[in-house]
């Protein structure tokens, strides 16, 4: 039984870590701007594409990774300045539509550049190596992801709790207008948020695509949506919440992928049920349940609206 479940659990934890890194970007941006940044998943995908092209043009891999991370963060910065900043005083729906527009644009740009073909992600030595733990063979990246995720999250939480810019971020997410009156440079804070968020998405893309090996223009949509669900699940605006939510969703998704085999081996069902079809749908079912039962998520703060 354990031998059947363990590989799925392992890849679940790994994917969960990758979702967590993406989810942080969503949750931080939402916390400050109250904007669902629909383009975030596509930025993650673009990071993958940049890596493919950079490696193909002969840049050594050890240089590629930092360059990709910097470029991704830069893209995040530019997107915010071009597509969201002009709409800051507009109704919230406008910014969301703009985010959808950016997502559409990024996907089409990548479609144009790649010709709509699957791109093979470069094999990064060491993290692509196979390892065997507790009898399950997997890639090194599976083991590294959760560790790296935890390290990055701890660093981020420290940044938010103990630095000046972190304090500014907390202030802005609490009250946008007042913090502006207190002399906080809103634009700088928002840009920093985007840079951090997209940087983490860049890290996630290196880990994720090392695991899945191909990138195409739609690769970012599903992980993006799931990461967002994770952020809502954990309580949007809360970083630990997003991480916990992401791990839950990653694990649940992968267990469902293997549910047919697991249940079969446990003797509960007699034949394949095709339950793997629901691995994506389950995430959204979870979302709807949490929204119906506890709309603020696991760790979310309660918000009261005034007339």
């Amino acid at each position, binding site marked *: 039984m354990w031998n059947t479940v363990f590989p799925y659990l392992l890849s679940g934890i790994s994917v969960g870590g990758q979702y967590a890194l993406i989810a942080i970007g969503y949750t931080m941006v939402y916390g400050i701007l109250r904007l669902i940044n629909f383009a975030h998943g596509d930025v993650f995908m673009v990071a993958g594409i940049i890596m493919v092209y950079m490696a193909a043009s002969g840049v050594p891999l050890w240089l590629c990774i930092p360059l990709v991370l910097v470029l991704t963060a830069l893209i995040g910065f530019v997107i915010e300045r071009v597509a969201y900043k002009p709409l800051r005083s507009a109704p919230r*729906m406008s910014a969301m539509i*703009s985010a959808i*527009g950016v997502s559409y644009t990024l996907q*089409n740009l990548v*479609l*144009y550049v790649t010709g709509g073909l699957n791109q093979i992600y470069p094999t990064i030595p060491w993290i692509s190596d196979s390892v065997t733990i507790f009898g399950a063979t997997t890639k090194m990246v599976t083991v590294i992801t959760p560790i790296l995720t935890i390290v990055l999250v701890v660093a981020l939480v420290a940044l938010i709790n103990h630095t000046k810019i972190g304090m500014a971020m907390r202030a802005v997410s609490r009250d946008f207008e007042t913090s502006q009156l207190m002399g906080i440079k809103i634009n700088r804070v928002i840009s920093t948020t985007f840079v951090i968020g997209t940087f983490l998405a860049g890290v996630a893309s290196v880990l994720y695509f090392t695991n899945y090996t191909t990138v195409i223009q739609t690769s970012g*949509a599903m992980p993006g949506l799931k990461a967002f669900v994770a952020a809502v699940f954990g309580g949007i605006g809360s970083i630990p919440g997003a991480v916990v939510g992401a791990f839950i969703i990653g694990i649940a998704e992968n267990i469902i992928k293997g549910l047919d085999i697991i249940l079969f081996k446990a003797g509960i069902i007699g034949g394949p049920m095709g339950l793997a*079809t629901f691995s994506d*749908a389950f995430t959204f079912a979870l979302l709807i349940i949490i929204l119906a039962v506890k*709309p603020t998520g696991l760790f979310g703060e309660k918000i009261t609206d005034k007339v």
Partner: protein
Amino acid sequence: MTEIKRKKLDSATVISIVIVLALYVAVFVAEQFIPATSMLFTVIKKGATYALVAVSMNLLNGFTGIFSLGQAGFMLIGAYVYGIFTIPVISRMDVYQYYNGGLVQFTLPVFVAMLLSGLAAAFLALLIGLPVLRLKSDYLAIATLGFAEIIRALFQWDKLGPITNGSNMLRLFPNFNDFNIRNADGQVVVYLSTLVPLLIAGVCIFVIILLINSTYGRALRAIKDDEIAAEAMGIRLASHKRLAFCISSFFAGVGGAMLAMYQTTVQAKSFTTAMTYEILLIVVIGGIGSVTGSCLSSFLFVACSEWWLRFLDQKQVIGDFEVPLLRNGFRLVVFSIIIMIVVLFFRQGIMGRKELPDLIRQLQGKKVKGGASK
């Protein structure tokens, strides 16, 4: 009361109706003389489908202020219900080849099946609406989007295969070409394959317009402007929202059936969130809160993406000069940039909140009532 009557009879409205009818006649005449393979008809067929779905989305997003992103899910329901009930019995063995001919062994008339498509989508909306409509703006958006994804997975589930054909496509059901009137030899006598979809969409949109201009429509607009104030004025929020959601889904379902006819095949995996985004962008380009705008921008959107911007996807040589950048996919890049410009700088879209009669009144030099105020 008297004011409403006067409004219905004013010349601008009459002129608008005449213009629309003239367009229908023009399409009918064109169809008889221009070869059926012309891109024009493809654009009109697909445009009519998208117009209906866009208007139905506008009813929610533009008129009621419910930001729903579940349109693709409801279209999927509509398309599948239509496909499942209209595949001729003799073809079922071919279509459901992995499921022994499938469970459904009868065929409904096309229009009955279309109505059923709408009703199925509306019923589902009723169920979904119970938990979802209580949510606030962006949570509602993401929840409806989630539902669309769940529906998509459900329809691909192998165990439902005898009904939905699993992840295989539905095909061989009647499509737009079957509206053409043929003589005994199978030759087309009267071409109707473009006019009929346009008529279906037209009738549905007309119903939506009537709805928007009723007291009920005004209640919806009040909800959009301020929920709490509307409630204080005695508008029952929950039931109005639910009804708007169901009606919008009904027409999205009918639109889905039309899309099935247009594509001639249906497969669940094509009804992605990207489709919803596309329709949302159409609504935005047309102007959130304008039926005329949604219709215009649907046709523009389809014409640009299927026809007018096609040249951007091919190598173009002017004299000795080969235009750079042009290759497969460039059209979509140009297109996205246009959309971003509209979203960022022309937030009103093509029409703002104006309708066709408002435009005519403007031309006549009269004052526009309640035009683009925001």
